[in-house]
């Protein structure tokens, strides 16, 4: 039995690796057809037996529909909730798993788990030790604090659930040994809101349709949010920072990503938003800053049913603003602010962006590297924005050339490219109606404005040093340059 379970687990893990590796090795159609995907192995093996602890006893004594208020304090036990009850920790009850196994298992529909601190699961990745595991529908998990846990909230075939106002903090392990802070497996119509997830592996949705994800914060994880084969998902007002990837959509359709902040996601892949063979997506009003690549577009949109809509985003200070794989076609980027990305738009490898549009009607995008002007004051530049620099082209062909970024040699090469247009490469794309002013974008996630105080202090320090030296030198006794005796007399007089 044990051997069979291990086999199933390893198979599952292998398939998970193959799909998440973004290598494109698994054709999505093939993957989509497998409707008989087995649920994660551990769901068949609910492990906790009703224990003798206080909370377990309270659950045993309760009847369906009861509300149990758990006394505050530390409870060292593992629970199984097999009745439809409301379990309320009142914000002061702590459940400690003692570093082994899962902590709370929910096997009855309609359970509410509220107001607990739940901590200290096992660290067995194969058994997927979780703080809360639910295998029943309509579960509500709210106002809990999870710390030192491998998997946080693991919902398996729990549709119509709510995960709200939890703080989920993983164990301080290598990324490879961490578990998912939040995992949904076939949980349609679930609402995930106002949670904070940090130091985990992924927050991941598998095969879950109609999920709403709003006002969550994900930081220092691998994937802030990861969608696998999950359709019609709304992702609004979240903040994902310091993850390897902010939001990664894979093989998912009908996704709306609005008003999120995606900042400093700089892991080995390092995308603000990654799109892999996804379809019918709208990405609007997001702030995407300081990532390795702001947007990464691989084979999306997957069909030609609808264009990929990327609208009104601020894409700023990324190493690459938008990175396209040559296969990407059918995207429409309008009214975005491309602000000071080192490469604003890049095609990985060689290829053209002909099948994508950077303007529509009278609205293009705002580009900080646009060099034209607007003589008729209609807010739109009078010349087409067709960026093509010789050096960028060199970098695309010879990546180690990036070493010479920001050096005068780079500018010299770009100057040569401008002076002799015949050797300049074809532009990668064109924006016929580039905007002269950035589009005002309202993200609900708060924009933190650094106070200028420290910088002003640094400026004052530098000015004081420079000014001090100058003033001291100027205040010294006046010496005429030709008055040689002046210096002679002050030198080395032997006593």
């Amino acid at each position, binding site marked *: 039995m044990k051997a069979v379970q291990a086999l199933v687990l390893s198979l599952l893990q292998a398939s998970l690796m193959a799909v998440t590796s973004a290598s494109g090795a698994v054709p999505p159609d093939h993957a989509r057809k497998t409707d008989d995907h087995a649920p994660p192995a551990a769901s068949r093996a609910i492990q906790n037996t009703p224990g003798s602890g206080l909370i377990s006893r309270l659950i045993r004594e309760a009847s369906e529909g009861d509300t149990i208020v758990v006394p505050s304090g530390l409870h060292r036990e593992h629970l199984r909730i097999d009745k439809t009850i409301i379990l309320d920790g009142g914000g002061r009850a702590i459940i400690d798993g003692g570093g082994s196994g899962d902590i709370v298992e929910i096997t009855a529909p309609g359970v509410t788990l509220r107001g607990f601190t739940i901590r200290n699961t096992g660290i067995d990745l194969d058994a997927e030790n979780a703080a809360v595991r639910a295998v029943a529908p309509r579960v509500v998990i709210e106002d809990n604090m999870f710390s030192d846990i491998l998997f946080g909230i693991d919902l398996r075939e729990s549709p119509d659930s709510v995960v709200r106002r939890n703080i989920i903090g993983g164990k301080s392990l290598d990324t490879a040994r961490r578990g998912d802070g939040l995992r949904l497996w076939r949980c349609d119509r679930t609402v995930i809101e106002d949670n904070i997830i940090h130091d985990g592996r992924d927050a991941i949705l598998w095969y879950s349709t109609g999920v709403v994800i709003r006002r969550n914060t994900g930081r220092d994880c691998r994937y802030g949010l990861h969608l696998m084969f999950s359709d019609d998902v709304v992702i609004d007002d979240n903040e994902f920072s310091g993850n390897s990837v902010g939001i990664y959509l894979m093989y998912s359709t009908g996704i709306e990503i609005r008003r999120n902040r995606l900042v400093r996601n700089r892991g080995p892949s390092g995308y603000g938003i990654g799109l892999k063979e996804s379809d019918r997506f709208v990405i609007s009003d997001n702030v995407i800053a300081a990532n390795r690549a702001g947007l990464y577009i691989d084979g999306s949109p997957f069909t030609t049913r609808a264009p990929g809509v990327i609208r009104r985003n601020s894409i700023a*200070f990324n190493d690459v603003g938008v990175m396209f794989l040559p296969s990407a076609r059918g995207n429409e980027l309008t009214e975005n602010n491309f602000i000071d990305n*080192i490469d604003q738009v890049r095609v990985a490898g060689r290829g053209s962006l002909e099948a994508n549009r950077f303007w529509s009607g009278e609205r293009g995008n705002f580009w900080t590297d646009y060099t034209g002007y607007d003589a008729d004051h209609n807010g739109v530049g009078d010349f087409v924005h067709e960026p093509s620099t010789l050096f960028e082209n060199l970098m695309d062909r010879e990546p180690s050339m990036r070493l010479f970024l*920001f050096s005068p*040699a780079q500018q010299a090469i770009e100057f040569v490219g401008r002076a002799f247009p015949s050797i300049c490469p074809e532009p990668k794309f064109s924006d016929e109606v580039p905007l002269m002013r950035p589009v005002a974008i309202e993200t609900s996630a708060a*924009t933190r404005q650094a106070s200028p105080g420290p*910088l002003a202090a640094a400026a004052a320090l530098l000015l004081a040093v420079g000014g001090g*030296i100058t003033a001291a030198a100027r205040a010294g006794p006046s*010496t005429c340059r030709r008055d040689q005796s002046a210096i002679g007399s002050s030198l080395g007089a032997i006593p």
Partner: protein
Amino acid sequence: MSVALTAHPRDLSIPAPPRAWRNILTIAGRELRDAVRSRWFILYTLAFAVLGLAVSFVSAAGTGGTGLSGFGRTTAGLINLVLLVVPLMALTAGASSIASERERGMLAYLFAQPVSRTEVLAGKYAGLAGALAACLMLGLGVCAAILAWKGVAARPASVLWLAALSLLLALGMLSLGMLLSVLSRRASVALGAAVFVWLALVLVSDLALMAGVVALRLRIEELFALSLMNPLQVFKMWSLHAVDATLDVLGPAGLYAADEHGPRLHLIFGVCLFAWVVIPLAAAAVLLARRSPV
């Protein structure tokens, strides 16, 4: 400093170093005073500040009032400015120092005084270094003030790093300039050589390395090692590393450097840049001691 060794080690009643130091200080003070009052100092300070202002204003406008900031045009522009202007400033200042004194017969006069030639060199170096430091701090200080005023959220630590590294680069280039100055008989020759060296460091060596990448298929570790030989590249990589803490912006070679050397990078860059301060200056001292002052 080796200067102390040239004084009288037997004379115990009056400790030897103070006199050498005093001589150096006297010459340095005079050099600094002359430099700060000279046209080149005022011109360079103004040029540096004005260019820095332009860079700061343009990049403040570039953020488009979104309140966003990051490693973008500001830092890159300032690094670029330093890369272009500071070596030119330091090289020409160093190059004209000894050679022009020699041309005017001032060097022979100075050497006739009871001071060692090394003391003269050290004094002149210290004086010019002070003038360059003042020039850089004023220029970058003005930039930082503008950025603070325009509400650009640059990190103050980045600005201070940039100032410190620019100063170190200036010291290295000043040292090289003084070596050229000691080697040249006339000031015009020294200045010409300085401009030539500047061009070589700023443009020619990078372009040659780029050609090497394409033609010789240099491996990235070779490319990184070769780029460490150019003090300007070292300055650039070090400032990126210090300001942004990631070198992956610089592609494969940067990633290689970060993975392979990681925490040692500060040390490596420091040694490379410091070598440009010490070695040319030591060579200049040796050569000056051997050469005729006229």
